[in-house]
């Protein structure tokens, strides 16, 4: 009796397990989908090459810079200017001011988002403080540079691009990982 049911039962159980895996597979799939389409306003997490294409002087694009520390992040964090007008293809540097008003060392991680989202594919960062975690001792401040250019292939309907950074306090995760990485050596 039960033997007759076994093949179908096993198939269904395997399907359920596969769907459990599929739930987790959605995480990388989502990232790949967003990278390919730029739908989520996510910019590339790695540096673009500095050999920019030719400069398109026939039009200008306004870049707006928004920066805010997350609620749990005590740093002061802001761009030097809030907007800039550029030609597509031109390489520019924008400095962000970070200040740690507390008495302890804090590690920050900035997470970028571009709006409108479709423009994210055309916003290239050659150098960015958001590529790595930033440490800042208590009471100190620093300038964090961003080197970027706008792709001349940017579709003409985009005349303004807003680049937003949210800065998170990742000191705990940083300590955990550095603790883990030092242990095996000892």
């Amino acid at each position, binding site marked *: 009796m039960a033997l007759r049911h076994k093949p179908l039962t096993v198939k269904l159980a395997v399907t*359920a397990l596969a769907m459990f895996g599929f*739930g*987790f597979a*959605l995480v990388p799939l989502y990232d790949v989908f967003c990278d390919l389409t730029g739908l989520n306003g996510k910019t590339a997490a790695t540096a673009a090459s500095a050999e920019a294409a030719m400069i398109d002087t026939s039009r200008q694009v306004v870049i707006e810079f928004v920066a805010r520390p997350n609620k749990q992040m005590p740093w002061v964090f802001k761009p030097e200017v809030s907007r800039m007008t550029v030609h597509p293809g031109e390489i520019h540097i924008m400095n962000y001011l970070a200040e740690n008003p507390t008495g302890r060392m804090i590690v920050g991680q900035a997470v970028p988002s571009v709006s409108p989202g*479709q423009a994210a594919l055309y916003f290239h960062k050659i150098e960015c403080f958001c590529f790595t975690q930033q440490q800042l001792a208590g009471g100190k401040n620093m300038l964090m540079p961003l080197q970027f250019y706008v792709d001349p292939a940017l579709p003409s309907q985009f005349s303004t691009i807003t680049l937003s950074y949210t800065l*998170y*306090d990742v000191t705990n995760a940083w300590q955990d990982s550095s603790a883990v990485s030092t242990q095996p050596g000892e």
Partner: protein
Amino acid sequence: MSAVVTDHEHDHEHHDHKPSGIKRWLYTTNHKDIGTMYLVFALIMFFIGGAMAMVIRAELFQPGMQFVEPNFFNQMTTVHGLIMVFGAVMPAFTGLANWMIPMMIGAPDMALPRMNNWSFWILPFAFLILLMSLFMPGGGPSFGWTFYAPLSTTYSSDSTALFVFSVHIMGISSIMGAINVIVTIFNLRAPGMTWMKMPLFVWTWLITAFLLIMVMPVLAGVVTMVLTDKYFGTSFFDAAGGGDPVLFQHIFWFFGHPEVYIMILPAFGIVSAIVPTFARKPLFGYASMVYATSSIALLSFLVWAHHMFTTGMPVAGALFFMYCTMLIAVPTGVKVFNWVATMWRGAMTFEVPMMFALAFIVLFTIGGFSGLMLAITPADFQYHDTYFVVAHFHYVLVTGAVFSIIAAAYYWLPKWTGHMYDEKLGQWHFWCSLISVNLLFFPMHFVGLAGMPRRIPDYALQFADFNAFISIGGFLFGASQLIFVWVLVKCARGGEKATAQVWEGAEGLEWQVPSPAPYHTFDTPPVIK
């Protein structure tokens, strides 16, 4: 025509000799016992979840804070939703499947009886864990039944792990139940019971079971991610670590939208059984019902992001999800048309099951229409997270799913107990429920359109009168369900003897066995003409 019913005296299977007392219920592998346990469990959960709804409505009776703290209010809305979805509606449908599917297809029992016992008995523990979490320091889950990150990760109470484990257990229980239903239907149909001869309740449950197997594991996955994000330092949904909170909503609603059809497809099957019986006509458009159910199930995988229009998505995405959502209205319309056409020129009578089925058709359609309004992307920005949404899903879940379960209980009670229920009390139950449920949920459309947000313990003064009205409807609806318990108890204890066919117009294998249905039915498969 004559059904072969073996009496259990000369049956040699081991569970024929059933133990008495609690052991009978703990060890049982009999589909009827397990079905009964599922149904009683669902009823108890319906009242526990209902009691939480009463707390919510008491607090919202007047603006300002009267009875509970905001944090406790949020726990009430959250646990009310979780209990009603996973504890009341889904187990009630599983209970009906256990009782009716073997009898409808001429099978002696479910295909995997021991797993059946297991899938029921882990369920009370899941809800024990969930309910216990309410008494933990910091309280239970308070992030809404949808447990959006970061509410359920960064900002949730310490008891979140209990919530996660209880959802895991509920999921395992549902998946095992679904596997059992599929294997039973595939392997145990009586000879001659071809696919297109199966009753629609069996068809809709088969499709529901496939949906369960596809999406419950995804739910298990997403709660696991919440668990590791909160306790083990992963960053699936934490932007600081490279994750994305919007990803949570995508995964959740990939489960969540098929889930709402899991809660309505068996209801379609129930109504498709009841309407022909009391219209004394065969169901109009049987084949189109099967195809409509299948296409609703397939479409349910393509519409999840209509819950997320306000998260910001490109126009192309919004249009895709909007049109796919609206497409669902077509097969649903086919179903409503078929029910109405079945009644057309039928010799209708209006016993309680038929009354609830008729109320289902009308009120579920109202819920469907407000769903269409919500599907319109630009309009959704106004409706999103307001009481309009609350009104919509209570019309489809209370006057939809719950009414169909009540209709099913009245319809098959004589078969289960061997007694007719008290028709007069049943009519009282119906009319009290019908009036109060509309007092309760209809004005929610208006306060929602006027901008009252959902999941809020306090509200602006202009909503005061409507909310008082809604709360009164809520208390009346809660009280009306006590009549239902009265009817059930009375019917279980005695009453007019029911015949095998019970209803004059009833057709199908379950009506060929005596009432009450013997402990073992169809040990020898019936012959299907």
